[in-house]
């Protein structure tokens, strides 16, 4: 019983650590997609965030400057996306794709030239990494049967950014549905002409949304390279940006369900590590690859309308052109 509880808690702890960058990236995507800008460039912005935060943290030995650099990189790329898609009415999918490919080349190219370690940054010392939070009261709880392990495995020693992510999730729920900005954001994604008629700037709102997107993706990247990991390595995001996109769609562009989707996808990842080569009753050994493809298959099924229905913001992906 104790072992089962411990195993479950360890799985949940791993889930939270894997889910954090997914949640940040998926919520980043939520802001811009809710404003009517499709962004398949989450992956690239995350990778840029990971590289620049690790590079700056490595040089300055200051994780907070690193975090800022990561956020700045994400925002800069988001603004490029905005310049192409909002100012020049360019194709949003093409622009996102371009950013992904650009960063997939740029990050290792710069890493290679600046640090000369085969496309990665040097291993970060612990003072250059975003620290974990040690909660008080661990000694008092340690002896209590259930609470002790829960505190140890789930609550204590989490990275600062995990708690920040929790705040961002709650804040997004409030911003999107309770604030004036959120109302306008949702309106501009559904009916930009109405927002324009009301005297608000469609382009301005979409740029604001993209800035939030860039900041959150940059933070997601910083978590990967300076929080969870200790330095940037080549192809560090490994498709997490696309997985976040899948989670966003699976969550139907809503905060609660999107959070759930991220946790579900992260959980499959955490389970997959433990299921390698384990014989299960009835089905035998499940190849890891099938568990890995599960999130993508689920998302396709959802998009096909076989598991609920995903309805995107109505103006999503369509450039807004003012009538003359």
């Amino acid at each position, binding site marked *: 019983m104790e072992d089962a509880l411990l195993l479950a808690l360890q799985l949940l702890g791993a889930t939270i650590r894997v889910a954090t960058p997914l949640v940040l990236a998926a919520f980043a995507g939520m802001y811009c997609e809710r404003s009517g800008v499709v962004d398949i460039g989450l992956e690239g912005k995350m990778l840029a965030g990971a590289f620049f935060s690790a590079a700056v943290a490595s040089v300055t030995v200051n994780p907070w400057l690193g975090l800022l650099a990561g956020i700045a990189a994400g925002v800069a790329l988001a603004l490029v996306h905005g310049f192409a898609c909002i100012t020049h009415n*360019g194709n949003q999918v093409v622009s996102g794709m371009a950013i992904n490919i650009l960063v997939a*080349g740029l990050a290792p190219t710069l890493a290679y030239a600046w640090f000369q370690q085969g496309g990665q940054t040097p291993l970060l010392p612990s003072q250059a990494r975003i620290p974990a939070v040690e909660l008080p009261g661990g000694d008092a709880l340690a002896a209590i049967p259930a609470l002790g392990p829960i505190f140890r495995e789930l609550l204590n020693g989490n990275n600062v950014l995990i708690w920040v992510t929790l705040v961002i999730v709650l804040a997004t729920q409030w911003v999107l549905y309770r604030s004036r900005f959120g109302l306008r954001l949702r309106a501009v994604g559904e009916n930009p002409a109405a927002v324009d008629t009301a005297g608000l700037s469609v382009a301005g709102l979409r740029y604001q949304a993209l800035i939030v997107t860039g900041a959150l993706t940059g933070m997601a990247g910083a978590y990967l390279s300076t929080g969870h990991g200790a330095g940037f390595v080549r192809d560090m995001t490994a498709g997490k940006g696309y997985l976040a996109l899948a989670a966003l769609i699976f969550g139907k562009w809503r905060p609660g369900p999107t959070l759930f989707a991220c946790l579900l996808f992260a959980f499959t990842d955490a389970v997959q590590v433990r299921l390698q080569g384990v014989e299960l009753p009835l089905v035998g050994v499940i190849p890891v690859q099938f568990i890995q493809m599960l999130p993508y298959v689920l998302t396709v099924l959802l998009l096909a309308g076989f598991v609920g229905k995903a309805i995107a913001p109505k103006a999503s*992906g369509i450039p807004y052109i003012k009538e003359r």
Partner: protein
Amino acid sequence: MGLIGSGKGQPGAVPGWVGYALLPLLNLVAAFVLSGLVILVIGENPVDVLSLMLSEAIGYPEAIGYTLYYATDYIFTGLAVAIAFHCGLFNIGGEGQAYLGGLGAGLVALVLTGWPWPVVAVLAVLASALFGAAWAFIPGWLQAKRGSHIVITTIMFNFIAASLMTWLLVDVLIRPGSQSPETREFDPGVWLPSMDRALGWFGIEIAASPLNLSFLWALACCALFHVFLRRTRWGYELRTVGRNERAAVYAGISPSRNIVTAMLISGALAGFVGVNDILGVQHRVILNFTGGVGFVGIAVALMGRNHPVGIILAALLFGVLSQGGGQLSFDYPTINRELVMVIQGLVILFAGAMENLFRPQVEALFRRRGGGEPAAAGPAKPGGS
């Protein structure tokens, strides 16, 4: 979703060649200027680097063979993306379709040991087309019948293909007793002859390179692509759906049937990458042999304005980049082949997403020089949905 990179601007404002030649050229120049800046940032001389790339790609016979071998892949994936564009679809799944196409070609070559190579080649072309088309069929069908956004489903199918192929190569098709996830090598009798061997039969000697007969098939596909799209009723229907779905419905053309057709052809074209790489070069099915060709295909189709001639030229350009970029690290310790992806990304950004960046200035220039009536008002055509 509108037709992307069609090269058609506002009628009457500027001569046609501005749309399909001058603007793409300006965009290309912008992309290369920015790439040059990146090279400056890492402390090298951009002119030296780019000219070295060029000479490593076309400076000697062997290099030209390599460049054309890369271009073969890019023609296939460029055509694949282009045919979907013509139907108003964005197929990002070329990567997965090419991967599956390689599986099809590989299975044929594994099973038909001892058969003459021309028979194997024809069957492998059919199998790679079938496997690639099958992988594109599901997203196409879901788009046509269930309205599932094809951009997202094809992205998901790339990941599903990657997992599926890993499983097949690690657990099923792996050569018994081997540690590395790949099939056994095909019998040399079924290999698709390389170009130097094929030309050798006619007494022509060229340098040995991975370039193989698939290159000729790629050129044939360009011709077939043009005939299909411009000279057949099916091609006309497909383009009509891409241009205006509602008009197509009024004309009695079924959008959903054409969407599925376009994706089947698109997947088949992407699948041919498998013939070039698996049957022609690797001679075994290996992990991740595609290495991003599906994504380069997007850049090729955008640069080539979805026209076969443009696609061949763009594929050659990207072939030069791939071959030249791969050689850079021998001369420059600070540069490796990822620099090519930077250039590719910038080309996609400028030629695709910002294709109208210079249009207002160019049009203004022509208006001033023409001195005639102002161009038809209105913004440039939006790139799509």
